[in-house]
């Protein structure tokens, strides 16, 4: 029982692993051509994250929103929806959690904390629901609607941050702090890491179970791979697609909520360095697999943070990471295409 499961798992991760190793090897040649200390640069890129508990905490904090957004993308893609609205859903969740936390500051923490988190989830869910319904009922292209919603949400949240919940004593467009009583506790043994990471890791496993071990998940995937087949087997296909989008948005919203409560402790305009897009890339690199998405999100987080350390200690610019990312995507798609042609 265990052996086939293990070999199956190895088969799944073999291709992405090979692509990552090849990318790193090619990247090393590049680094060697611009710096005298290529080994040092590469060590920092890959390993500086683990030099200190502090660095390690920052690494986990970075991986948390990436994982959650990637999981959301997995749900929507499995339902056949090309959801590129992770960024908007993230901001909607973050700002809603902040507003609820500030407005309900007088409530006891045991009430306010779940309330704020649920509010963030729901806000993202609503932003996911809109393109889902438009797609299913009116066949409106979801790429357009999710992209446009990103812009709308970004502008609304920055208006809120500037005009409504702005901390007038602070510099920059940031909101008031949320009450410290509802800050997420740190991870055990890693003082500055958010326990949101645990939530993300658990949800990765839960997502896998839901998508691949429940009838609901099978129905979502049936609708996502062949809507007309799903209908012909009695699946309420439209409903399944919409609920998958609600969950997708909700997970991205949850990423925003946990960021505010665990890391930022307030809403900051432009707090996300394109987590939405990076999360999407993580999900695609993991071939839309929940557990794989956790792995790719960790890899991305390591690269993003490692690049900063590398830039500090050597003269290699951090934008090297963008180049490596591009290379990785290229190699992965090349593989996918070959696999598709073989089939």
């Amino acid at each position, binding site marked *: 029982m265990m052996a086939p499961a293990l070999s199956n798992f190895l088969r799944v991760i073999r291709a992405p692993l090979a692509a990552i190793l090849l990318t790193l090897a090619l990247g090393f040649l590049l680094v060697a051509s611009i710096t005298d200390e290529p080994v040092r640069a590469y060590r920092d890129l890959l390993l500086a994250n683990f030099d200190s508990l502090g660095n390690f905490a920052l690494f986990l904090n970075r991986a948390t929103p990436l994982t959650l957004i990637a999981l959301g993308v997995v749900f929507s893609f499995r339902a056949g929806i090309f959801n590129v609205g992770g960024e908007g859903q993230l901001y909607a969740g973050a700002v809603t959690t902040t507003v609820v936390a500030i407005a309900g500051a007088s409530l006891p923490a045991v009430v306010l904390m779940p309330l704020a988190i649920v509010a963030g989830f729901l806000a993202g869910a609503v932003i996911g629901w809109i393109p889902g319904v438009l797609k299913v009922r009116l066949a409106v292209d979801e790429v357009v609607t999710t992209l446009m919603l990103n812009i709308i949400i970004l502008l609304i949240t920055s208006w809120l941050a500037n005009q409504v919940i702005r901390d007038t004593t602070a510099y920059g467009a940031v909101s008031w702090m949320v009450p410290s009583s509802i800050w997420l506790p740190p991870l055990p043994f890693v003082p500055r890491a958010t326990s949101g990471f645990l939530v993300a890791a658990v949800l990765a496993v839960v997502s896998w179970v839901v998508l691949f*071990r*429940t009838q609901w998940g*099978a129905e979502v995937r049936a609708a996502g*791979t*062949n809507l007309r*087949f799903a209908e*012909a*087997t*009695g699946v309420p296909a439209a409903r399944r697609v919409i609920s998958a989008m609600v969950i997708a948005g909700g997970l991205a919203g949850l990423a925003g909520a946990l960021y505010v409560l665990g890391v930022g402790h307030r809403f900051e305009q432009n707090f996300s360095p394109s987590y939405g897009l990076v999360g999407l890339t993580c999900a695609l690199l993991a071939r839309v697999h929940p557990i794989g998405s956790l792995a790719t999100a960790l890899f991305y987080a390591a690269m993003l943070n490692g690049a900063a350390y590398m830039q500090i200690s050597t003269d290699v610019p951090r934008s090297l990471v963008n180049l490596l990312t591009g290379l990785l995507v290229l190699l992965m798609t090349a593989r996918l295409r070959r696999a598709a042609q073989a*089939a």
Partner: protein
Amino acid sequence: MRDPDIILSLAGIAKSFGDKAALSHVDLDVRRGEVHVICGENGAGKSTLMNILAGIHQPNAGSIVLNGKTVTIADPIAASRLGIGMVHQHFTLVPSMTVAENLFLGRQPRRLGIFSDRRQMIERARELIARYNFHLDPEAPVRTLSVGQRQRVEILKALAFDADLLILDEPTAVLTPPEVDELIGVVDGLRARGRTILFITHKLREVKAVSDRVTVIRHGRSISTRDTADVTEADIARDMVGREVFLVGRKGNAQRSFGAPVLTLDSVSMTNHAGRRLLDRISLQVRAGEVLGIAGVDGNGQTELAEAIAGLMPVQAGKIRFGDRDLTDADLNERQQAGLGFVPEDRLDRGLSVTMSVAENVAATNYSRAGLLSGGLINRQKLDGFAGEKIKEFDVRGAQPATQAGWLSGGNMQKLVIARELERDPSLLLICQPTRGLDIGASEFVHARILQAADRGRAVLLISSELSEIFALSDRIGVMYSGRMMRVLDRAEADEETVGYLMNGGSKEAA
């Protein structure tokens, strides 16, 4: 040895893709001026062989002798230079261009070397059409033509290059019965003009109707070449399958008694968004233990009838009853609960999700019914066990529970769909085009399953545009034309002539 009558001679042709041998040893002699049928089941290697002749694939071994000279056919251009014209199963025409433009695509007559000379092009197209008596308008856009007419354009395109040897790859697969007859007439005409024709098919009736000689290919080997006049359909079928074939059928004379009506349609009408009538007051009844066959040329409302009964498309008027229950407005799920098993007409469109596994496809409608859930979760072992059972019971070849459904051949995909729908032992089996694109072995199997269901007292509604299938299986035959049920005939009063007459809307002219 050198026979001047032999236009093409293949010896020991072999071809493999990767480690899979598509052809292992094919010998073939084609005489000048004959119609030679290549016959074989799906996957026997017919298409590979033709693609070698058309220059698309190169053989790994063997020789090709054309007009007494050994040749290599490097690419399709070389093939046409050698006088080999190929008509593919899937058309290669530009729908928005006219017949003449399609015929001369890439080789238009020129004036002063640059301007295309439309008048000359149309004139030459007209001559070509007249020479072969094809009744086509050279200035009609191809998109306005029927499938049969498009095929004639394809044939003309090959002939315009002065092909001595014309290859028709499964030309009847896309045609309706009257169009098949017309094509056979076209082929006869070409033979009369001295052309040599290689005709690929797996339909036995056509072999007898069209050919002078027939070569059977099985598992990549040429099995036999015989004069068509000397063989029976059963002989060919035996060579194709490699064993005795039992062509099952309802024994027409046996006295049968049927039970109560399982499905009743009462004046059901359906209109599309544009207001066009798709179904026009259809009434019918299927009784327990009975096979009701619905014949008709594709596109006369059969698809809509199936979707209406399955609950996938709403009807505007009339009643649909399962037993005594009115399920006119029920969704598919409710109808399944009420005893519907539904095999859609297109396994790739509605029948399967080709990117999901065999196990998930066969379990799709059966999770709770077959006890595949434990504690709300899918039990992987039970799921695989269930799929393994179905694979064995329905002889789905090349399938493991975890195999992607899309990797199976058409016949095995179809078995998968039927396995899923029969699992519930439905009281009404609605089965559409059950053997479309299937080879003899698979068709035989599917037909036996349909009759088994009827013998167990289930009601079967069989919708098919394959007349031989309707005649072989049905107790009663309904004929649809233009959204109407022309008549429902008892098997005894239904003969090909009457049914064909009704299929054309009751007019004597062929459509």
